[in-house]
């Protein structure tokens, strides 16, 4: 069988799984050839990029990517679109890598760069900027459902969750090998518990929503939910399969047995939260000075309540709640995990996923369909269970890992993956539009040490990426491939919620460029805060200049999405989000036309224009170059001038024009 199987270190077996002596043990299982032969479970093929004879075709191939794209297009009688102009291209690639518009100076520098390598230099400059890590880290945060509160009724804040966000941004900026990135997140604590970066990364295992309840804590039920979150995200994020579907029953479409699911869960049986305090001595003292007396009062009340007659308990509870509300935020900490063998949860298959109905006992083992039949499982208690799982995932020959990540990268560049369902390579997901290209890129990714930047380069320098977003053969092409899955043009895209806000800030000149650090709470409408069960958590950040920071640094709270984010399809971070929707509807128009933020920023934008360009044609020119990356067309200039001339000198007209620019298709879309 395949070499990577050896990675599953069966030598670490430390005896029987917890509780197994009395329990029925789930069979290790066998898989039919038809189940194993599914394309995504097969080893990657060694594909060679197609070559061409016709000079036109030859000339079009800039990087190996293009050979695959062109060959497929030719097969169905389509041609790629002509190259996009330089103005379009710099805006496209800048948004792609930074999530921000290029400045007029950057545009000019690129347009006037005579070097045949001007575009290549541009790509390299963008990849080297820390803005790259912000934008691409943000994509990863969608996949791993990063948020800064627990969700559910208390929606308690996780004030130090930002460390994980910073870790992700930093990892992308360093171009950390994906193998290391996966291992640190799954098992950083097991690799080296003295390394702060590793500990922060291991907080990955705690990113999911967390239910805490008043009254009798149902420990078993809560633990089951925690384990479910830990397990499901591995399938979705790293393996790109919906293994979570097998929690209640064998997967209906893919060869994942229920026992496979719980064996995956077995790797997490020992994992427990581990908050490592990072507060200074003074901070700790001050915190205790507030909290200790409160806790003392609560303990006394609880004692009293135990002895109190039933009628008085209600009143005591109200007093208790009142004290609870005075509790300050927890001390600054790293949210890590650690293995606690003594507290290991025995893992069973659960009938219909019900924790009250455990059936067969299981140990830890990766997905059976990717192992030889009857591969033994590990015990629940091993020295490094999650690292064992991570090592299996990042084995160079793993059929899913590299394909899944390469596909994500492709998707964020082109708006659509080679497999259109980035979290689902199973039977219910999409089939690859270019299977050979997918394998080619995955092989290259592995060969380059699992680094992303060489892959970005190869994609960004391709002719396929540099095509115009309009095709001369649009009509025919639409009939053959309406989704543009074959890439006969570049698919234009609407900016994402964060990109819209960041761009509005950037072009008005107000963007605070600070990178990293704790999240910002902006002041928001009181009615919104009222929709929180614990409104007291929403305390606006004192430093007002922080309100103009990039959107990714605004707190991502599970129970309170900023309205602007919600209408522009930002995910709610309750579940993994592999790809964002791009809807267009009236609530978006209302937000951008009448919303407080867009109107305030329009006024700032108008002011900037007036300050920087005293005279009118030049002012319009700058306005368009900032908002759309190009000069206004004659028609646009005429329309805007007429509009302004109707009420000469009226500042309202300039503000409204600035607002129109925020609403303009040429601003909201990237061609």
């Amino acid at each position, binding site marked *: 069988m395949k070499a990577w199987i050896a990675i599953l270190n069966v030598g670490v077996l430390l005896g029987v799984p917890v509780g197994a002596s009395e329990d029925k043990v789930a069979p290790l299982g066998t898989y039919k050839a038809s189940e194993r032969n599914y394309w995504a479970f097969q080893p990657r093929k060694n594909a060679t990029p197609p070559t061409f004879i016709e000079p036109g075709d030859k000339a079009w191939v800039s990087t190996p990517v293009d050979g695959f794209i062109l060959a497929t297009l030719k097969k169905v009688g389509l041609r790629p679109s002509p190259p996009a102009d330089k103005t379009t291209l710099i805006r496209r690639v800048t948004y792609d890598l930074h999530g921000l518009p290029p400045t007029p100076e950057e545009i000019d520098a690129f347009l006037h760069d005579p070097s045949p390598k001007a575009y290549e230099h541009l790509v390299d400059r963008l990849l080297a900027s820390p803005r790259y890590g912000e934008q691409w880290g943000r994509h990863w945060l969608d996949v791993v459902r990063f948020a800064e509160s627990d969700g559910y*009724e208390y*929606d308690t804040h996780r004030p130090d969750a930002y460390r994980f966000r910073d870790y992700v941004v930093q990892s992308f900026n360093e171009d950390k090998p994906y193998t290391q990135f996966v291992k640190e997140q799954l098992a950083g604590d097991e690799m080296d518990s003295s390394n702060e970066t590793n500990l922060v990364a291991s907080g990955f295992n705690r990113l999911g*929503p967390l*239910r805490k309840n008043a*009254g009798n804590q149902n420990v078993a039920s809560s633990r089951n939910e925690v384990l479910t979150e830990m397990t499901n995200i591995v399938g*979705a994020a790293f393996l790109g399969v*919906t293994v979570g579907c097998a929690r209640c029953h064998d997967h209906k479409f893919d060869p994942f047995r229920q026992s496979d699911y719980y064996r995956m869960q077995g790797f997490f049986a020992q994992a427990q939260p581990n908050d490592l305090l990072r507060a200074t001595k003074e901070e700790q003292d001050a915190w205790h000075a507030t909290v200790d007396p409160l806790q003392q009062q609560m303990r006394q009340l609880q004692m009293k309540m135990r002895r109190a*007659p*039933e*009628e*008085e308990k*209600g009143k005591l*509870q*109200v007093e208790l*709640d009142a004290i609870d509300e005075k509790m300050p935020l927890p001390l600054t900490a790293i949210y890590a995990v650690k293995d606690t063998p003594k507290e290991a949860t025995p893992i069973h298959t659960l009938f219909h996923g019900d924790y009250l109905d455990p059936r067969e006992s299981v140990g830890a083992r990766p997905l059976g369909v990717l192992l030889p039949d009857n591969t033994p499982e590990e015990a629940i208690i091993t020295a490094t269970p999650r690292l064992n799982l991570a090592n299996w995932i990042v084995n160079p020959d793993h059929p899913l890992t590299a394909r899944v990540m390469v596909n994500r990268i492709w998707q964020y560049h082109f708006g659509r993956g080679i497999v*259109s*369902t980035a979290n*689902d390579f*199973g039977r*219910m997901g*999409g089939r690859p539009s270019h299977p050979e290209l997918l394998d080619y890129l995955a092989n290259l990714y592995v060969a380059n040490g699992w680094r992303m930047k060489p892959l970005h380069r190869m994609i960004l320098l391709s002719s396929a990426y540099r095509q115009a977003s*309009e095709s001369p053969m649009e009509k025919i092409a639409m009939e053959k491939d*309406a989704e543009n899955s074959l890439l006969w043009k570049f698919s*234009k895209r*609407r900016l994402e919620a964060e990109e819209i806000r960041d761009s509005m800030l950037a072009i008005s000149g107000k963007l605070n460029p600070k990178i990293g650090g704790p999240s910002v709470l902006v002041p928001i409408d009181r009615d919104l805060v*009222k*929709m929180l*069960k614990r409104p007291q958590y929403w305390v606006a950040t004192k430093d007002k200049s922080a309100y103009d920071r990039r959107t990714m640094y605004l707190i991502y709270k*599970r*129970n*309170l*999405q900023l309205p602007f984010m*919600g209408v522009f*399809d930002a*995910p*709610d971070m*309750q*579940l*993994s989000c592999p790809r964002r929707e*791009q*809807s267009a*509807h009236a*609530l*978006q128009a*209302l*937000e951008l*036309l*009448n919303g*407080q933020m867009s109107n305030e920023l329009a006024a700032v934008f108008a002011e900037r224009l007036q300050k920087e360009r005293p005279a009118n044609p030049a002012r319009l020119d700058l306005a368009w170059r900032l908002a759309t990356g190009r000069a206004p067309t004659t028609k*646009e200039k005429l*329309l*805007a001038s007429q*509009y302004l001339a109707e009420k000469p000198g009226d500042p*309202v007209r300039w503000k*409204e*024009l600035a*607002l*129109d620019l925020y609403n*303009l*298709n040429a601003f909201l879309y990237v061609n």
Partner: protein
Amino acid sequence: MMAEQQARAASSLNPLAPKPPHMPEHAQAKSMIFLFMAGGPSHLETFDPKPLLNKLDGQKRPAEFGDVQYQNVNSQSRILGTKRTFRKCGKSGIEISDLFPYQAEVADELCVIRSMYGDMVVHSAAQYQMMTGRIIPGFPAMGSWIVYGLGSEAENLPAYVVMPDSHGAQEAGVPMYTNGFLPSVYQPTMFRPGNKPVLNLDLPKGLTLEERRRSISLLKDLNKATMVGEDPEFAARMAAYDTAFKMQTEAPKVFDLNTESKETLDMYGVGDPKTDDYGRRCLMARRMVENGVRFVCVVSGGGGPEAEWDAHSDIEDNHLRMASWTDRPVAALIKDLKRRGLLDSTIVLWGGEFGRSPESEKGKGRDHHNTGFSMWVAGGGFKGGTVYGATDAIGLKAIEKPVHFRDLHTTILYQLGLNQDALSYMHLGRKERLTEVRGEVITDLVSLRTP
């Protein structure tokens, strides 16, 4: 691929355009109002009389009733009798407690389900299940599903409206009302208190409508100036600006309750400090439905046990208060819909995420209780004047014809002409629907239409 169909649907010119139901032959209702009694109203004090409770008052639960899981009630807890009296109401003789004298007047419109049950005994998870079919957040609410299935007939209004209680939030928070993974066009519009319930419908301060009309016409001209050929996505975006502008000018007329007669305002209890708030919102709900809004949720309860139906410490005090705020408006809504001929096409659902325990908590209160409780449905082809299912003699468990949330969801969809399997959306490799486990259409709850 299904995912591609979805994408196409989302980018069509108007994603909220009305869509025909899957089963037009069964579609009796067009819209729905959910009167959400947050916190869990007691079935034992409202629609499910249990004389045995008063006999067992102060005793431990007899063993023959079995065991259920509670949040706070434990093996030491004692049965709590009720101070409420029940009487047979209307022609149908449905028993309703003296807590609801107004709802008693519309008894013949109510289809009371006494055998509801859910899976969770804590607020957040139970609320998620009631609203979204799942005990975890992240899934679309029934309002989003229904709008996804049927589109909207309200051009100038949001398709799906939630009117929160101004006392504060519920445990499951906003995520229980939201669109989950469905495109954001299916999100709820959360109304705010007062005359201007929709955010961003007002022009920025100091700007005239004339001025704004001009800037929007400039925006359209600018967009057209650079549009190449036909572009469905850009066309949809421009259409959205037209809709937005129309909403801005037309919707405030619908929000203005001053056009209602004094008789109507009185009926809803508008002006009476106790009922004014819920009365206004119920009246607004009628106006929404009248104008084609698909789904309205009118929340009663929020901010904490005292202002929710969450009667942990004193069932009498709590429920008398909550009833005094809501009973009259709830009954008025039914009467008003009926006399305007809207009740037949509007499903009105009343209830919360669970009921309350037969045992006392803290002496006079009742704990959460998910294994048997009451909800009622009126209109939309549901059989008025009926009682369906039963709990045991102390109201502990639904023992006769139990109805899970998923069955209620399925039956509601059915009355709207929607099929629970066809109303699906591909998400993370799974064809998701409102019901996690397939629900049953409870045909006994509805007057079946003879085609």
